[in-house]
């Protein structure tokens, strides 16, 4: 058992691949499995700032939603091919994160949370008002990707298995890339800033620059998650940009374990699974999910994945 666990933790990318492979077989329906993939990536992206740099952002909905709208608009209004739409979503997330970061990285703690929250509200109302492009209150409809043209191959994206495979591969690629980045010297710099800002500064790191870079990187991953969300649901609801969507990322990261690489992904899976299963049994589902959350905060600070890691190693 210990050997298996050790292998798992030493090869997080293969571990994530294994997780993505078995996920559709342990969820009640494929659409939920795809939601877990997308929100898992979103939580991982969020955790770059929270877990690795130590800054709590309450504005990540702007990155997810911005990515989703950019991808949707590229498909609906500009008629771009699917690859370009995903790229547009990723770039939009990156750009919004860069702007938010440039304005917010000089602050810390509660101030950082407040500034990012305010900026994400600006994004929310901006997209809300731009009705000809975003559909406003009604949301953006018609993000209809039917056939997926890959050279030499034409796939029906409305087939659940195809949709899961394509999105699963993209998410896995992003997870692998993120693991590589976190293992790089830049990943170490982020941890240094988190652990001791003064010492990081003394070691010659430009703390603000590291934070801005991390925020921008976080935006790229959240933007990609948004783009995949838009293609999966074939709509972009305005709720994607709402601040509760930012709160969901915080809950997922803490529930899964923000000090581990893969924890937020596990948190997303447990959160969405609970929400889906409990909400069909009682209208008081937020109470159940809330109690689970509080229990983990009180009894297992490391989160689900963090506790497992600590126990098994």
């Amino acid at each position, binding site marked *: 058992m210990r050997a298996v666990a050790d292998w798992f933790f030493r090869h997080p990318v293969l571990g994530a691949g294994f997780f993505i492979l078995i996920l559709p077989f342990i969820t009640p329906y494929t659409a939920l499995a795809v939601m877990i993939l997308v929100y898992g990536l979103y939580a991982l992206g969020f955790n770059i700032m929270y877990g690795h740099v130590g800054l709590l952002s309450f504005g990540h909905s702007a990155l997810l939603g911005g990515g989703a709208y950019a991808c949707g608009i590229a498909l609906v209004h500009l008629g771009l091919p699917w690859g370009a739409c995903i790229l547009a979503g990723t770039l939009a997330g990156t750009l919004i994160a860069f702007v938010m970061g440039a304005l917010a990285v000089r602050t810390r703690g509660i101030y950082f949370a407040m500034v990012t929250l305010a900026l994400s509200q600006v994004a929310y109302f901006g997209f809300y008002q731009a009705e000809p492009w975003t559909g406003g209150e009604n*949301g953006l*409809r018609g993000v209809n990707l039917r056939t997926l043209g890959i050279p030499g191959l034409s796939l029906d994206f409305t087939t659940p298995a195809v949709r899961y495979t394509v999105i699963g591969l993209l998410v896995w690629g992003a997870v692998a890339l993120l693991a590589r980045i976190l293992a790089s010297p830049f990943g170490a710099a982020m941890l240094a800033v988190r652990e001791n800002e003064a010492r990081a500064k003394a070691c010659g790191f430009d703390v603000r620059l590291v934070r801005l870079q991390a925020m921008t990187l976080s935006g790229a991953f959240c933007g990609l998650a948004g783009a995949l969300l838009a293609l999966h649901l074939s709509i972009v609801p305005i709720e994607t940009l709402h601040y509760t969507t930012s709160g969901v990322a915080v809950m997922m990261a803490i529930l899964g374990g923000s000090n581990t690489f893969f924890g937020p992904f596990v948190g997303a899976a447990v959160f969405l699974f609970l929400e889906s299963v409990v*909400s069909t049994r009682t209208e008081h589902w937020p109470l159940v999910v809330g109690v689970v959350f509080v229990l983990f905060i009180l009894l297992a600070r490391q989160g689900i994945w963090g506790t497992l890691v600590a126990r098994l190693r």
Partner: protein
Amino acid sequence: MQRRHILLGTAGLLAAPAILRAQGAGTIKVGFPVPLTGAYGAEAQDQVRAAEVAIREFNESGGLGGRMAELLVRDDRLNPGEAATRTLELVESDKVNFVVGGLSAAVQLAINNVTKQRGVIFNSISQSDAINERSDWSRTTFHEALNPHMTAGAVGRYAFSRLGKRVAFLTADYAYGHEMVRGFQRAGRAFGIETVADIRHPIGATDFSAFLPRLQALRPDVLFLCNFGRDLQIAVRQTTDFGLKRNTKLVAPLLLYTSRLAGGSAPFQGVIGGTSYYWKLEDSVPSAKRFNDRFRAQHGGRVPSDYGALGYGGVRTVLEAAKTAGTTETDKVVEAMRALRYDYYKGPQYYRGCDHQSVQSVLVVESKTTARDDVDVFDIVHTENPDEENLRSCSELGHG
């Protein structure tokens, strides 16, 4: 207790996929995504009750050549993303034959986008103007509910001809409010109305006192409250407390049975509004009497609400069409629905050819003073008969 029954029933449905499969391809499955939790939970639960009436009625009459119907209820939590996910589940995993449901404009458009891509019939049972328009509509899209244009038009024509032509609007600043105002303005053109104030407030407002002195000074004949749910309840209570009713008649485009019950008798006294159905219609319409009696028998003597009745109408039309077509094949059922001339619970109705909007009557009701538990809360003061003239034209909506 009723509420719990429904949820337990829903849970039971979900917990028993094995049973569903055992019944084989014979069962006709109707997916029913509605917001059981969230701000419109009361309306949604009544929609489920009414849909169950339609299902039982269909099964008791022998089904489609022995094939029984079954309702698969899902909670969309009033969130378009969740609604899309649940609809994907219904279509892909549960392989439903039809989808009926939705209880907000954004949610029904989300459901519609998913079903339209997959060629599944969707009958929407809540208000939206956008769903009739060419960009959202598809051959498999049907709209059993009223839309804001029809509702505001009927209420407006009643108000302008009887209550006065100096009007003011207090509007929630989002799609629903804007569509209602547009409907009133269009209807008002023929009457030469004078708009003395057009006030927009953010959705979810709790304090309207900033607008009220201005409205009182202007003394309009009619004040249109183009907001919904809790916003409407608070706006009605505050305008009443402020004494605005002395000179001005309050009119809400959509006055729901459930929000009147929640808002109470005194604040709503004398408020006029539109609705698709009120149970007292049974005094004059035989089909309403039939429907109410079935509903009472199945649900412990209670009467259906307006939105609830739409759940009945929405489910019954697809099932009757399947029966006429003799199959659940999408194309044939679409044809049968387009050909339906029906009177199931409120008088004659049919789906208009170009956009599948249900052409139907609109009721104008006035809230009356009642005792606390009395369910007879409205007087029907006017009925606008079904007429395509009252809909936006097909060409205006972008159809051919």
